[in-house]
């Protein structure tokens, strides 16, 4: 369950990071500001409060969804709003003359973003995005508080049944540590993949 939530929320996080990040870097004022408000809302309160709020408040509006869906959406959007800042910062860090170049070459807005801006921006995004992926894994235990039986929830059950407190919590701490370490390893591989050829480009300058 922990893995499922992490994977599901990871997808939501990536999609929302890019959507909010690109919108946040856009020049259309209303789009920029509405995204800002959403992002600040998610960044200004804790994931736990948001999760609890969504779990209890949505039924008031007549929306009944599975707790797991609430968990995936809230955690994904929460970390995604931090991710959108990463994407926005990386896009804005692409030098201006690159964008002027796309205008000169008569590329459409979409082409400019897809073939010129994003490939350069993505290299700067990977390390902070990796940290966010670990953050995401680390806030998944919160879903145990809205009745989802993830790793932490199961540990609570086992503790109550066997009262083997030290072993149970020690064990899941190690499991979380190993899972995070896998993400760290994976991210450094991806980083190497996207950075290939970069040293040659830099060497030409």
């Amino acid at each position: 369950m922990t893995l499922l939530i992490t994977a599901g929320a990871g997808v939501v996080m990536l999609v929302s990071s890019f959507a909010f990040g690109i919108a946040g870097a856009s020049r259309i004022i209303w789009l920029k500001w509405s995204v800002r408000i959403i992002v600040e809302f998610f960044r200004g309160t804790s994931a736990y409060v948001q999760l609890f709020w969504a779990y209890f408040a949505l039924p008031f509006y007549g929306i009944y969804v599975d707790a797991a869906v609430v968990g995936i959406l809230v955690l994904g959007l929460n970390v995604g709003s931090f991710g959108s800042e990463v994407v926005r910062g990386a896009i804005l860090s692409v030098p201006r003359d690159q964008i002027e170049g796309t205008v000169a070459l008569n590329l459409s807005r979409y082409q400019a973003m897809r073939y010129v801006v994003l490939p350069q921006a993505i290299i700067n995004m990977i390390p902070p995005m990796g940290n966010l992926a670990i953050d995401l894994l680390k806030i998944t235990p919160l879903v145990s508080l809205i009745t989802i039986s993830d790793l932490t929830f199961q540990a609570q059950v086992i503790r109550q049944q066997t009262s083997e407190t030290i072993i149970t919590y020690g064990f899941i701490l190690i499991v979380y540590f190993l899972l995070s370490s896998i993400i760290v390893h994976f991210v450094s591989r991806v980083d190497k993949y996207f950075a290939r050829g970069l040293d040659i480009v830099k060497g030409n300058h």
Partner: protein
Amino acid sequence: MNWDWSYAFSLIPRILEGLTITLQATVLATVMAAFVGLVFALGKRSQNRVVRWAFYWVVEFIRRTPVLVQMYFVFFVLPRLGVTLPALVSGVLALGLHTSAYMSEVYRAGIESVPKGQWEAARALNIPPLRLWIDIVLPQALPPMIPAAGNYVMMLFKETALLSTITVLDMMGTARVIGNETYRYFEPITLVGLIYLVISLPAAMSIRFMEEKISRNKKMLR
């Protein structure tokens, strides 16, 4: 069911009482993180390879595991070992320890931002290590650390909501108790969310302002 204003207003005093606990926990855990974080940062810079290695992995372990589980660990395991602490104290220990791991990175960046010439000059002037740290390194390393540290304090402030899971009556805990009493979670939880926003938005803005000011000063120095 709809939003009930009179009910919401009647809850405010109790939730503000919870806010004092939230703030207390934030301050205590911040103080702890500031000290323990420095110890971690110095440990990772130790001359001794074994010490350096041990500190590195302790910090990584803390950073790679969830703070909620760490909190459960402190809260449920310490009594087993014969140490009985109030829930608030064990919560603050866990939050403080978790934040220390992040603070150690902030300290590291701050210490590394002190130019190498300063260290060499101190050695040339035969300044003892303690004075080197107190009079030369830290005064230069601390100011650039403030925005980064501020961000972690904000993170900590928001994480204190987790204290409610180990029976502490902070803002969130109070809201949950009210919800249990009245079966109306909507108003208390919304209020808690709003109070968190009201505090963290101005704080985040002032941190951003400080960041910009510092980077502008740096540009002027160049």
